[in-house]
């Protein structure tokens, strides 16, 4: 009997210890019945904390909104991740514990591809059909967005993400190198592009850094561009969902039906065109990404650093990097032009489309999704109402321009009609506010899975690095496509055979 107290104490201590470890961790959140309410907002990846320069105006406007709602506080959670993929992986983990933040930064590609499991993000369409109380006379909140944004935002009548800004990609070139090589105007077509690359190489410049690091973005831009162009005539063979962007199901069906396949000459043509660039590409491209932060010290590195060191004549970049180039002391030394168009003069598979807005698009800053009660146990009806009201405030024309433009020093273009903003020099002529043709994303954009994206990019690295012949590349690529489509169908419980 004497031993029992000791045993009991140890048992209680063990249970308490285990309880502390597995059950009662983390800070408590205010309950719905509490008079005060705290909304949690996961900031955009790469923007640091709420006190960072990029988030300054967002926070200022949020404090204004809080004044309109006494007792309500918005708590910003820093996003420690540098990519959407990593950020979303963390979101899934939090959601599985029902502890996802109320608002999360998101991108339309991830919401339409199936990269985020169903049930984590809320369909905002019912709210978008109602008036925005912060805009006098508005009957439907959705009407406030530019057509280019709504085209991407709404998929199958659902809207899992609100878009905030437009961005464009462009070729950035060294003006001095072009001048020395005798290039007097920037190329508009693929053929002119090849001619200029030859001139640069003949003048001993490393003409073009393509950048194809794992986790980078540039190869997906090329894939999106040529697929949207060269497969335009075949879209009806795999565009199952009939949305602006071919989603995961569309891509899987395209593979299943042999449209997205090296056996399809139109699809293969795109990769053959890319192969034409190989003699002009700078070495070591797998260490660089067109989307990398200029402060990156480990791969993927920013191609802008060697570009400003005059190592290459051209890089493919984005409007969001204009402030970086200025900060690197290259202001006035660079010019920009849209990636050249693949015309029928180059290949008979071209559709001669204007693809402005297809590569780039509303994928900049200011993209938010709301989590569901299944992913976020604190998402009560009261919280939901407040979150929607907060978003209505942020996406009102009088507010949206400020926090979006400020986040990118004027390199992002707000997508709310009537939003006021000041854009960076030379940026606006790269944009189009018209609805672009149907955008076809592929495996390099992570349409089917992040792992197949990595696998695809490694095959592409081997092809661009002359480690694979065309036949080997085509064979490996086809095998990867087939395996990826099968894995996607299995993971998403889709029977692809019915689309055969």
């Amino acid at each position, binding site marked *: 009997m004497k*031993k029992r107290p*000791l*045993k009991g104490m*140890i048992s209680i*201590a*063990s249970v308490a*210890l*285990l309880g502390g*470890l*597995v059950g009662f961790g983390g800070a408590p959140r205010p309950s719905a019945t509490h008079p005060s309410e705290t909304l949690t907002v996961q900031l955009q990846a790469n923007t640091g904390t709420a006190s960072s320069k990029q988030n300054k105006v967002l926070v200022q406007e949020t404090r204004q909104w809080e004044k309109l709602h006494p007792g309500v506080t918005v708590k910003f959670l820093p996003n420690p991740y540098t990519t959407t993929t990593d950020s*979303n*992986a963390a979101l*899934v983990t939090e*959601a*599985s514990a029902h502890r996802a933040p109320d608002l999360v930064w998101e991108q339309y590609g991830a919401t339409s591809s199936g*990269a*985020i*499991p*169903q*049930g*984590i993000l809320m369909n905002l369409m019912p709210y978008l059909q109602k008036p925005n109380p912060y805009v006098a006379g508005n009957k439907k909140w959705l009407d406030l967005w530019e057509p280019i944004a709504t085209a991407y935002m709404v998929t199958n009548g659902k809207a899992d993400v609100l878009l905030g800004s437009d961005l464009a990609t462009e070729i950035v070139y060294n003006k001095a190198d072009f001048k020395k090589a005798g290039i007097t105007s920037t190329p508009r077509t693929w053929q002119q592009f090849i001619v200029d690359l030859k001139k640069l190489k003949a003048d001993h410049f490393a003409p073009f850094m393509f950048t194809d*690091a*794992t*986790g980078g973005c540039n190869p997906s831009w090329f894939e999106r561009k040529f697929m949207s162009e060269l497969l335009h005539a075949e879209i009806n063979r795999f565009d199952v969902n009939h949305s602006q962007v071919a989603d995961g199901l569309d891509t899987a069906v395209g593979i299943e039906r042999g449209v997205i396949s090296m056996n399809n000459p139109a699809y293969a043509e795109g990769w053959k065109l890319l192969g034409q660039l190989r003699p002009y590409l700078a*070495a*070591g*491209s*797998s*260490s660089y990404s067109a989307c990398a932060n200029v402060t990156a*010290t*480990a*791969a*993927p*590195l920013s191609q802008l*650093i*060697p570009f400003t*060191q005059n*190592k290459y004549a051209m890089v493919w970049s984005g409007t969001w990097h204009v402030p970086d180039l200025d900060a690197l002391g290259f202001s006035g030394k660079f010019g920009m032009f849209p990636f050249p168009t693949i015309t029928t003069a180059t290949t008979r598979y071209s559709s001669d489309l204007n693809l402005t807005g297809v590569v780039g698009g509303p994928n900049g800053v200011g993209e938010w999704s709301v989590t569901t009660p299944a*992913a976020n146990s604190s998402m009560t009806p009261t919280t939901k109402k407040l979150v929607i009201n907060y978003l209505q405030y942020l996406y009102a024309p009088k507010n949206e321009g400020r926090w979006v433009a400020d986040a990118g020093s004027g390199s992002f273009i707000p997508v709310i009609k009537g939003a006021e903003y000041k854009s960076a020099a030379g940026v606006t002529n790269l944009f189009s506010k018209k609805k672009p043709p149907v955008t076809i994303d592929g495996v390099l954009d992570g349409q089917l*899975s*992040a*792992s197949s994206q*990595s*696998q695809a*990019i*490694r*095959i592409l*690295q*081997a092809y661009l*690095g002359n*480690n*694979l012949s065309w036949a080997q590349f085509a064979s*490996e690529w086809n095998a*990867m496509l087939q*395996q990826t489509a*099968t*894995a996607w169908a*299995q*993971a998403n*419980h889709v029977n692809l055979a019915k689309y055969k």
Partner: protein
Amino acid sequence: MAKVSGEWAEHHPLASGKHKKHARLGPKLGVLMIIPSIVLVVLFNYYPAVRSLLGSLTSWDGFNPPQFVGFQNFVSYFQQPVFWPEVRNLVLFVVGGTIISIVFPFLAAELTLALPSLKGQNRAKYLFVIPMVIPQVIMISIWAYLLNPDDGLVDAVLGLFRVSPVQWLGSTHTALFSILLIGFPWVSSLGYLVFLAGLQGISQEIFDASSVDGVVGLSRLWSIDLPLSIPQLRFVVIIAGITMVQNFVPILLLTGGGPANATIVPGLQMYQEAFTDSQLGYGMAIGTLLFVFMVLVSVITLRFLKPRT
């Protein structure tokens, strides 16, 4: 009351005359004290392992309920085009990493003990051991700087000898070697301490006897030091093998598995499938296969590296 005897009884405070009550509880108290550790190990080590084994038979996105798919994840993994490149790289990493973990620390331990004064030996020990406290991520970051293709120190030094810059991590020919290069000269490791302890444990009488027989210098190293260090060698080989299988962090941070498939390994794919692609079932299947591989490496090592007397 059970009689407490032996060395423990003589020296342990609980067994002294003043603590007879505690001494009575001694063995049982020991059992009770170890229970929390066992519970935590089971909870955080064994449960996840078993959970992983079961999870490998499911398709699970981490949020919605898992669905049983049998061995489909394993079949998919073996059929994927990158399977053989992963196997090749894994073998190269394990073999290369294990050799590095043996040769250099062993030589460093030999050289340390070959120093004439005890003071010198102690200083050498400090010199070799202190770098062990550098966290791996810091070490990787340092090497990322050193091998940086834009302004890396290695290329800068080679440039002094008119050697063209090398794309250390950006070329299929050098990427895998560059990953192995991290930690050069590979001396400051657990292996160094293990070998040092082993060599110090060899009886002086054996060295004296071998000296009389004319076994000195390199012949002593081959005939005496190495054979008598087999237990340490076996331990280092197993630990190094497991570490190389598990440790994909340098690859994740420096190359992402590229360029092409030059540095892709199963561990990296496991991480990407599970934590960036939310295919946890598939990731668990790869993890299960890695566990089997590590067991095989350990068993083979234990079978072929038997201690000699």
